[in-house]
């Protein structure tokens, strides 16, 4: 009958510790895969080449310093072309995410909600492969002088279990961006 020398198990145990403590990798700064820090709204009045840019910017991401938001000022009873850009400016050079969203148009929808709703009407100028709007470019027709807020949402609406859920409304999916600007429609 074989008898294991008692030194063997202790030796194995020590070996386990030493073997485990080999070269270890060094800590590296983490990088967030997808981060949108900036929402840029560009209003170009019809018939002119004047472009006004308003930004919602939170460079250091969630928390830290508060975001900087520029207030929107538009003229009443005008028609504007509205272009939206999404950027990641947390590092240099800045990364423009707009092209990514464009390429995944079937899974995204940009919604504009003015409060009160009488501030202006919006019509999207672009469509995805299923003929639903995307919202990266569109038309804004302002009505009378007023003040309020404008909520801009980038909805992420990927298919679930292979079935597309995007239906042109903001109901399906979840927010990737949900920012609020203050807006004045001046005379």
């Amino acid at each position, binding site marked *: 009958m074989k008898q294991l020398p008692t030194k063997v198990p202790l030796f194995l145990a020590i070996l386990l510790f030493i073997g485990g403590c080999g070269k270890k990798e060094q800590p590296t700064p*983490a990088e967030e895969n997808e981060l949108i820090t900036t929402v840029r709204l560009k209003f170009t009045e019809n018939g002119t080449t004047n472009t006004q840019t308003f930004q919602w910017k939170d460079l250091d991401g969630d*928390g830290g310093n508060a975001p900087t938001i520029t207030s929107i000022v538009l003229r009443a009873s005008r028609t504007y072309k509205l272009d939206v850009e999404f950027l990641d400016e947390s590092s240099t050079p800045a990364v423009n995410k707009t092209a990514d969203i464009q390429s995944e148009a079937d899974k995204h929808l940009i919604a504009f909600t003015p409060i009160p709703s009488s501030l202006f009407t919006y019509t999207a100028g672009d469509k995805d492969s299923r003929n639903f709007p995307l919202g990266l470019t569109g038309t804004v027709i302002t009505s009378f002088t007023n003040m309020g807020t404008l909520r801009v949402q980038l909805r992420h609406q990927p298919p*679930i*279990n292979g079935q597309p859920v995007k239906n042109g409304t903001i109901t399906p999916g979840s*927010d990737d961006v949900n920012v609020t600007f203050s807006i004045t429609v001046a005379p």
Partner: protein
Amino acid sequence: MNRWLLLGVLLLGGLGTHSLFAQSLTDCHCLIKGVVKDRETRQPIAGAVLILKETGRNATTDAQGQYKIEQLCQGTYVLECRIVGYKVIKTTISLQHSAEEDINLNEDEVHLQDVEIVARRIQAPLTQKSTVLQGQALEQTRGQTLGDALKQITGVTVLQTGASISKPVIHGLHSNRVLIMNNGIRQEGQQWGSEHAPEIDPFIAKRMTVVKGAAGVRYGSDAIGGVILVEPEELPKNGKINGELNTAAFSNARMGVVSGTLQGGIPKWEGFGWRIQGTLKNGGNIRTPDYFLANTGIQEQNFSVTAGYRTGKVGVEAFYSQFQTNVGIFSGSHIGSTSDLLNVIKNGEPFIKVDFNRQIERPNQLISHNLLKIKTFRNFNGNRLNLIVGRQYNRRAEYDLHGPQATTNPALLFRLTTFTGDLTFEHKPIASKVNGQVGLSGLYQYNFTDGRPLIPDFEQKNLGLFLIERVVHQKWEWEAGVRYDWRKLDVFQFIGTTLDPRLHYFGSWSGTSGVVHTAREGLSFRVNFGTAWRPPNPSELYSKGVHHGAAAYEEGDDQLKPEVAYNLIGSVDYTHKRFRAELGVYRNLIQNFIYLKPQAEPILTIRGAFPYFKNVQTQAVFTGIDVDTEWEIITNKLIHTQKLAYLRAYDLRQNNYLVLIPANRLESGLRWQLGKALKCDNTYFSLNHLWVDRQRRVPPNSDFMEPPAAYHLWSVVAGGDLPLSKGKVLQWSITVQNLFDTAYRDYLNRFRYYAIEQGRNSSVRLKWSF
């Protein structure tokens, strides 16, 4: 007198003395003798007390573990063996003359019974209330997660993130406040996260023990609410190959689970044993009474290998296990902003309803956990030296749904490596009364976080030293212990790309003292006062960011101090004829209790405003009662059981209740033991009712939604043993949970905001042992 009997035997010779002795009604020269051994090491146990319940006669084993009880009358007796630190053993002994009985003419005695008793050592503290889940009760949980299997124990509930992810909650405490010992090794796997379920395959266990209350002295930090011991069977001793195959099929999620074990030895090498075990699980979308939950499938593949060799003096065992799972996270729960959350709460149900599907897409969790453990012991002069070393690697990848992203990268990846070492010395009984152990524990751990920097990279070193002593004297058992723990935490935080390292030192004493008193047959009392501590984890110190699914911005505080718990727990066990009751009362005072406190102003992020929570410390007290009763209405035929749990958790500084505390609950069961029926043995049928109250004890305006209403759940179980050829047996059971497909929500389920709970779930379980 003995000489006359001897003469009688000689005279009758080969005629068969059977009838003669059987007619001798006043024959009281029988004796019971034998040896008491430890089940695992086969070493004799000195100081074991053996009691014959019918007569009250008793004996104590000597240094060789031998005992003898003489001058007994013929009859049937129940022999009870009690040893400090071991499970109580009861055997029935029949002192009747039988045809096979040898009469040894060299001895004076006749009617001799040599009874070897093999006792199982228990790892749980002696004077604390602990409940064991094994045998048929454990078999009925097969296929469920570890948390779900344990929730049948009074005082234990689950914290869920949907039905696939559940974490055990002991007396209202969970995550970092409940320690799980996986086959003797501390389970380390980002347990601070409420949606991080323990990465353990319940099939490796033959026994699960829940120790309620602070058990810091024996196990170290984190054992504030209790300890869960997941223990496999000892390795086989003989060379025969045997095993078992378990299958479970569930109607809800159309889930199938299969698990097999094969074990044996090597015929020429006595003392060697091996075991291999594997489990596969596959389920699809979970069904609620009204709709399916999209993307709630689960796939799991686990296996484990054990090999060991032991003699009476020494033993060594190696164990390796691998756990892998892909868990789908309900798409309807992955909201982007507070307005998303408020919209779905207002809607009352998910916006998107789907059909059944097994496909798991994003969002999902992909987790693997490997454990390598080597255990060795050495006996010398009645003392025992144990060494357990282990290495575990936990890889947790969480795939998010949000943002334009590379489809192969997880949003969050944790890689945690932990080395543990435990050296314990159990000294031989001092004065045959005092048993105890002294131990040294070490832990070395390092973590890497890739993707979103939810918690930083860190390195941790722990060292602990403890001493526990137990004394048994007549009807009293005393226990006392003390421990000191020390921890060094190196944190590698980055501000942008610049390294900002931090260093933390933590240290604390823990103590325990308790007593068990057996007042008389059927009445015993148990009281324990214990302390435990818990240093803040890296998430509580350094987290900073939005917690998706919780719709909250959470921030850590690197100035947090360790929590210290002072727990007083007492219980009474009463047995009288066909009625048994257990009443447990506890009060757990936790100093520096860390929790997330909502701040006045929300935090504005790219996804809108989120409620802002900061990790703060307060003084909390948890008070509760657990009651278990069992009444054999008709002996061995009809049994009624009742379980009641009451818990009140209070924040002494804020003068308000704590959030996310389980509500009161009452569970009743009625069980018919039909014996032989339908060609099966041990058939039974049971009916169960669970009532969970609405949690009324919450601070106002502390949640997005009021705690859900109270609910009633019914379930039935039927089972039996079907005899097969060659003496084999197929154990079967059919269970229907949520019999009436009740629609309800549970306060401790994160998904209560988004959907109702699982509907009816019918399951069939088969176990074939060969």
